[in-house]
């Protein structure tokens, strides 16, 4: 693309006259407008310190966050269903141990009978 600035010699007399009238009107601004423009400039420069976030940033972030939460909620019950809880050997031994203690009288009786027979 040609980035040459416009050559004002290309303008016709009528165009030049129009341009001069338009440009001279810029100098006729009243003091109140000039002051308001200076205030507007000052306000704009203050915004330079603030970080710019595009308009679409908030909705997009919200959607992404909602999708992640939905994904976690949908997948988490499946994870629980597929889980196999390992049973420890101690627990098996413990359940067998309880039976052993419950039948202790029988084992004492058996042992005494045996010793009696052996005699």
């Amino acid at each position: 693309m040609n980035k040459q600035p416009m050559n004002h010699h290309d303008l016709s007399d009528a165009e030049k006259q129009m341009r001069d009238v338009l440009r001279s009107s810029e100098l006729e601004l009243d003091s109140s407008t000039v002051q308001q423009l200076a205030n507007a400039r000052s306000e704009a420069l203050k915004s330079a310190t603030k970080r710019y976030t595009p308009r679409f940033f908030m909705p997009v972030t919200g959607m992404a966050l909602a999708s992640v939460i939905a994904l976690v909620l949908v997948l988490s019950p499946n994870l629980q269903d597929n889980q196999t809880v390992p049973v420890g050997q101690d627990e098996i031994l413990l359940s067998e141990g309880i039976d052993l203690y419950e039948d202790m009288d029988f084992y004492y009786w058996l042992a005494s009978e045996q010793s009696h027979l052996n005699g």
Partner: protein
Amino acid sequence: MLERSSSLELQSLDQFLASVERRAFSIARSSLGNREDALDVVQEAMTQLVARYGNKTPDEWRPLFYRILQSRINDLHRRHKVQNKVKGWLNRFRDKDDGSEIEEDPFQNVPGPNATAPHHQHETGRQMQVLQSALTTLPARQKQAFILRCWEGFSTAETATIMKCSEGSVKTHYSRAIHSLRATLGEHWHE
């Protein structure tokens, strides 16, 4: 070091905005026909340039600034169209004018420090008024091409970028605008 470069950048931005603010306001007022709207649009364009393009090189600021300004002007035109439709619809149900008037502050119209001599001001004001009313008769795209090419002095390529169209379209819009203005101003304009 970072703070120093940022301070220099702000200084450059301040200088740039100060150099374009009067013209930007005059263009916006000419396009919108309203002082308050023009001030709002210029402030929005300044804020957006600083916030989004402050880190660009100063050479890039001018076309970017006018691109934002034109975009804001177009947005406001669209908004006004909708508002006018709603107002027109609502006015059917309202009572007619109640005769109340808003008093103007006389100090609002005091000329600024760069104002020209009264007789020259009067002549320029008359010519501006004639040109302004001729400009209002132009279609939006032709007016935009004329303002950017003739008033602001952008090249055809720069104008095309700002207007988001081809250079050929800019040439067509501009040529038609000049033709219409010359035809309208012919009897009022002394060459």
